């Protein structure tokens, strides 16, 4: 019902070609928990799409399905043409770095696993490190970096293979607000320059609205798509946008949808008794 209300005016994504479609996707774990049920989701070229929802709504599961870390129980994932999950980069909730390896070696890793030598990888690694503002930290090891810097390394590592889709699983959830805002800005800048597609999992209404061109709100038990919002505010979005009344209105809209999604779960839960 909400889907109808908001999906009519897509900002960026309307004309863009489809990159990946989840069709009627379901996932049931071996312990009987239905993590996802009948999820339909279209991801278009250049989208910044957020999956927003309470914990247990299957947003991380959806991301893992897209990444190929897990397979759907029912339904299917349709990739466009020659594109597949080898064109994805993944950023975890934790920085997930090799603690014994330098920043350079951590970023080199995906290329190294594809057989690219250190010398051959060096230009790409240095380039992506400069994109995340970490030039000069090549030889540092993770423990010498702050939480925000570790996350930047993690993003650089995901970007070094030049993926078409960047999958991000609550990447900034563990950071303090100031660092999170800074990383939000930097991520948007990177996204606008490189024009890759982002699927961003979060449980923060404010973060999802600030970043995304589309917000997909999910509900829990079973995990499903509850509704979708198109965030029409123009890019680049900066600190001024963060305090604007437009932003506040969009946040309220997203928040209402989220509350609605949570209530729908509570309702169904209640009905079940």
């Amino acid at each position, binding site marked *: 019902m909400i889907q109808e209300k908001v999906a009519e005016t897509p900002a960026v994504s309307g004309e863009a070609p489809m990159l990946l479609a989840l069709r009627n996707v379901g996932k049931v774990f071996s312990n009987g928990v239905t993590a996802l049920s009948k999820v339909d989701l279209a991801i278009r070229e250049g989208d910044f799409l957020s999956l927003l929802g309470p914990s247990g709504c299957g947003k991380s599961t959806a991301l893992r399905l897209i*990444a*190929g*870390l897990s397979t759907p129980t029912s339904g299917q994932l349709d990739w466009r043409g020659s594109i597949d999950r*080898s064109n*994805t980069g*993944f950023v*975890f*909730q*934790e920085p*997930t770095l*090799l*603690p*014994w*390896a330098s920043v350079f070696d951590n970023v080199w*890793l*995906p290329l*190294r*696993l*594809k057989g690219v030598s250190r010398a051959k990888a060096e230009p790409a690694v240095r380039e992506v490190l400069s994109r995340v503002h970490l030039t000069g930290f090549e030889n540092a*090891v*993770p*423990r010498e970096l702050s939480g925000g810097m570790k996350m930047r390394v993690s993003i650089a590592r995901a970007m070094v*293979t030049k993926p078409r889709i960047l999958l991000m699983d609550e990447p900034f959830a563990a950071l303090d607000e100031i660092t999170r805002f800074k990383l939000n800005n930097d991520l948007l800048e990177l996204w606008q320059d490189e024009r890759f597609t982002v699927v961003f999992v979060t449980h923060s209404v404010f973060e999802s609205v600030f970043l995304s061109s589309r917000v997909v709100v999910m509900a829990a038990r079973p995990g499903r798509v509850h509704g979708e919002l198109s965030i029409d505010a123009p890019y680049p979005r900066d600190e001024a946008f963060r305090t604007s009344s437009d932003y506040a209105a969009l946040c309220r809209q997203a928040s209402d949808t989220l509350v609605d999604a949570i209530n729908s779960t509570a309702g169904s839960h209640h009905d079940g008794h």
Partner: protein
Amino acid sequence: MTAIDDTTLKLDPEEARRARQERLERIGKWVLPLAIMVLAIVLWDRICVWNEIPQYILPRPGVVLQTLHNDAGVLFSSLLVTLRITFLSLLLAVIGGVGLAVLFAQSKWVEMSFFPFAIVLQVTPIVAIFPLINIYVNNQTVKLLLCAWIVAFFPILSNTTLGLNSVDRNLRDLFKLNGATRWQQLRYLRLPAAMPYFLGGLKIAGGLSLIGAVVAEFVAGAQGQSSGLASRIIEAGYRLNAPRLFAALILISLTGILIFLVLSLVSHLILRRWHESALKQER
């Protein structure tokens, strides 16, 4: 220097007390054991004198030191024999322990099937196994090596297995996402992640390989087949040559301490940049 004094002056009583405590602990860590050691040696000497204990029962520390000097030729050549067995068996324990751990890490089934055998080897006293080895193995060195190896390899095996299996789940996913082969995962992820565990096992195994070597020599030496330090001890025991007995004992202890210190240093050097265990002193 003055800067340090200034900050000390500004500290509130609680912080000052803590700083003083830390300084004392830093000094005490070295001074206390040394002081106790010196005290014990002096007491040992006094007890010998006061009670007029004969040298063949309890020699005075000075006599032991003198013996260590006079019998250096015999003792140190025996020490070399023991050391050879110790280090060779440690080397084999590393190769065998890590090799088996890597094998176990390849499949839960392999681990489940073979780990019990490793435990059986570990819990059966080596002295009880030796007569069998004595029957089956002819070569003297191989006999001793096998004994010392059985004692030393288990901590390396169990620790490295634990390490290989305790890799962060997300890191494993990351390697999977990037299409890493089994070998790449082992080489770039599991082996480095197991390093702290392996080094912990190595520290234990270092001491155990010395113990294993000496015990093996003891059992073999009882049959007059060994020339290591243990046989010197047995020999000295038969002849009631207590000073040499003590001298040999001290040599073995010092060797054990040295092995431990060297392995601790190696461990520290390898882990100092990234592992929590090596970072403690920073605070």
